[in-house]
């Protein structure tokens, strides 16, 4: 495909190719941006390969795949009734075997077309046209059409639904919290074409469609009961046969002739719940009761896995992290200087080493990861106790201050991190007590606690995270942060295609977040999972999505 052909897909693509050729753009950033602009992933890889000489090699191609077998995965089974309000990756992993997204995030952290075959964006990134894949059938026999997608977006953008997509697709609704979807936000061009008219430019629209609450349910989902488990209608490769919260989810392969997608080698899937004890799932894998783990819950398990034969370890660098976020509306954290004092006590390298055995990268208190393409390198916050004490004194606490932080008991790296933070802030006169509580209790109060430690999953773009967690009024803005200048720059970043230009804006956003000291972000986590040697073709994905399209089981 030459540059003029690329220009037909999107006007900006030839410039991207030039940037790659001249070394102004890294291969990974090219792949990501090109696929976002509608170039299919294989073509993007091919174009990048002709320039850089690097071609992807799939491990699954090394051997001839074997058909058959049931893949058993250890994973918590939670209530999966309504995909629109999913709040755990595990829920997404159950549902995505039956229902699928418009755009899928691959193991390489690059979005690729899925139920949407391709898309085009206007120059100003405010108008996006999505061409849906034709010939896709729901497992109830209906055709997959534009009405399905419109019904989903309409529901997500109804504030009453309570979906996190309300923040994710904020450009399709009014600017204020509680505003409904804009009248002309979604146009049905024909049965398989949809046009999105955005209030503000949003580069990440396709990538936002990869997240687990954006799995597409049937257009009559609500009319037919609004319960995915009871009425598991989907376009995906598997059929849900059995589902019991806290126990299991069982799937059989859908008739190959009915499924539009890549060949499926497995006859079926079983997700088995082994509870919250990290040792239980590992014991199940070691004794052959399961073939694959959803993830390794404890970093302490990595050395044990490495020493054990017959088990394969998977590792990937991610933008997963945890943030010790301070609620800017609650005393004493409504005082900026208190927050800055807490941040000034932190040594991120030491935190990473002590709490996470150096599996990752140090954080910088702005929630934009070095794996994000638009990450801008700005000075990392340094530990400075003199400054911390001075800030506390100026804030009216010359004799120190007593505060507490809430966190979950499992996984242990979260509570360990909080304990180390508590030790780090003590010399400055901040007596931080750590309230370790069960997950259920914490997640009931994660939006209201004055000081809490919340884990955040991977998102492919930095702007996505900032839109979800730090824009004024969005549901997941757990720190109640509100800064008009920040929101304005974020809008600007959302509409900036050029990675270098976007990086400059991100540098300002990162600096604002550091200055406002909304979060202490200790580090970026590498994540791990493990499987038996029988499992072939599985690739760990940074958002912990489990896709089984290329997965097969060796005999034995």
């Amino acid at each position, binding site marked *: 495909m030459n540059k003029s052909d690329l220009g037909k897909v999107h006007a900006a693509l030839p410039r991207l190719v030039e940037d790659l050729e001249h070394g102004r753009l890294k291969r990974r950033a090219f792949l990501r941006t090109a696929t976002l602009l509608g170039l299919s992933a294989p073509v993007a890889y091919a174009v990048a390969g002709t320039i850089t000489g690097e071609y992807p090699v799939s491990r699954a191609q090394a051997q001839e795949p074997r058909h058959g077998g049931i893949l058993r995965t250890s994973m918590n089974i939670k209530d999966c009734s309504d995909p629109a309000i999913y709040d755990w990756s595990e829920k997404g992993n159950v549902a995505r075997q039956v229902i699928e997204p418009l755009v899928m995030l691959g193991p390489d952290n690059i979005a690729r077309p899925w139920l949407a075959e391709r898309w085009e964006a206007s120059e100003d990134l405010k108008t996006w046209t999505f061409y849906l894949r034709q010939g896709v059938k729901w497992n109830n026999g209906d055709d997959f059409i534009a009405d399905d997608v419109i019904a989903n977006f309409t529901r997500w953008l109804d504030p009453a639904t*309570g979906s996190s997509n309300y923040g994710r697709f904020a450009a399709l609704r009014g600017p204020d919290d509680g505003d409904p979807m804009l009248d002309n936000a979604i146009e049905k061009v024909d049965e398989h074409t949809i046009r999105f008219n955005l209030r503000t430019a949003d580069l990440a629209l396709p990538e936002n469609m990869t997240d687990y609450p954006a799995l597409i349910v049937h257009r009559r989902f609500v009319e037919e009961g609004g319960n995915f488990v009871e009425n598991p209608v989907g376009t995906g490769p598997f059929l849900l046969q059995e589902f019991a919260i806290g126990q299991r989810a069982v799937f059989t392969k859908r008739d190959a002739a009915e499924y539009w997608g890549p060949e499926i080698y497995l006859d079926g899937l079983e997700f088995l719940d082994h*509870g919250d004890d990290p040792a239980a799932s590992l*014991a199940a894998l070691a004794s052959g009761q399961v073939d694959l783990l959803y993830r390794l819950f404890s970093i302490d398990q990595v050395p044990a896995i490495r020493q054990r034969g017959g088990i394969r370890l998977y590792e990937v660098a991610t933008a997963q992290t945890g943030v010790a976020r301070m609620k800017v509306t609650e005393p004493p954290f409504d005082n900026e200087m208190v927050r800055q004092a807490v941040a000034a006590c932190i040594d991120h390298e030491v935190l990473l080493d002590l709490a996470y055995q150096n599996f990752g990268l140090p954080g910088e208190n702005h929630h934009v990861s070095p794996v994000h393409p638009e990450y801008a390198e700005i000075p990392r916050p340094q530990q400075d106790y003199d400054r911390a004490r001075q800030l506390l004194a100026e804030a009216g606490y010359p004799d120190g201050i007593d505060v507490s932080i809430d966190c979950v008991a499992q996984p242990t790296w979260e509570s360990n991190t909080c304990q180390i933070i508590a030790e780090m802030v003590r010399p400055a006169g901040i007596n931080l007590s750590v309230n370790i509580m069960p997950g259920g209790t914490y997640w009931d109060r994660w939006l209201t606690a004055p000081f809490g430690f919340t884990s955040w999953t991977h998102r492919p773009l930095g702007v996505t995270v900032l839109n979800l967690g730090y824009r004024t009024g969005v549901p997941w803005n757990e720190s109640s942060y509100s800064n008009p200048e920040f929101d304005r720059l974020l809008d600007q970043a959302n509409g900036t295609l050029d990675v270098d230009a976007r990086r400059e804006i991100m540098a300002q956003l990162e600096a604002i977040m550091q200055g406002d000291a909304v979060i202490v972000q200790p580090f970026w986590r590498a994540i791990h999972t493990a499987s038996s040697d029988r499992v072939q073709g599985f690739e760990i994905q940074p958002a912990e999505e489990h896709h089984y399209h290329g997965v097969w089981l060796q005999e034995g």
Partner: protein
Amino acid sequence: MLIFLLKRLGFMLLTMLVVSILLFLVLEINVENLATRVLGQFSTEEQRQIWLEENGYLRPIYIRYLEWIGDMLQGDFGHSTRFNVPVSEILFDRLGNTGLLALCVFGVMVPLALTLGILAGMREGSSMDRSITFFSVLTTSVPEFASAVFFSAIFVFALGWLPGTSGMAQGFNWTEMVLPVVVLVLYGFGYIARMMRASMAEVMQSPYIRTAILKGLPYRRVITKHALRNALIAPFTVIILQINWLLSGVIAVEYFFSYKGFGALLLEASLNTDIDVIQGCAIVAVFVAVGTQTLADIGYTYLNPRIRFS
């Protein structure tokens, strides 16, 4: 005897009534929290109020309590917010699983503990007595969660002989029962064995046993015919009380081996603020505790003829 039985049953009902009131008050005072749990984090205050109204949570607490007790007496334990099914559907399933585990443990533990206790108590101070005493004290001193890790490390990770979890995902599999049963037997048997030993040793020193031996009765006959019946009275109470422990006190073992039992259910419900399940489990646990206590009292009275009723 009848008056005694009625008194025990009356006391049992009274205990359960008091516990049920306390339980209801503790768990149902914060209904706002329950609404948030059911409707999700993004629910509005208005949505929560509507839900509370629709589900009757805004009525006076004594009316709700009486209704709750009435429903429970008819087998309706409410609805689980975590499992999204009626509580009775999971509660009795899990109770059945734990009952099965308890039965297996009992089947091994009681004969083993009694045999070792008798052997140790027959000749107090012998090398067999000392060996059995040492072994039973050792195993009972190690908490279940520690021995679970220890046995798992050996039999699952090192030798690969046994399955690591006991979720029975593919239906009942006896190999999955081995580790939880072994861990519980080792923890629980020492207590009964020690009690049996002490009781046996005491009986063996009593004059009527000395007389039986001196008049030339075979030693085996002295043990089986004369000593055992009296020696079994004290351990009986301990054995009956183990039922209570096995049904609601083996949370750590069920959790570690991912066994879908009653204890694990109670833990999961507590971690997820699943109020109806907590209430149901707690009431059943109290019933089991009070019931086994009553059974032990009655059994003890029956076994010991020295206790008379006036």
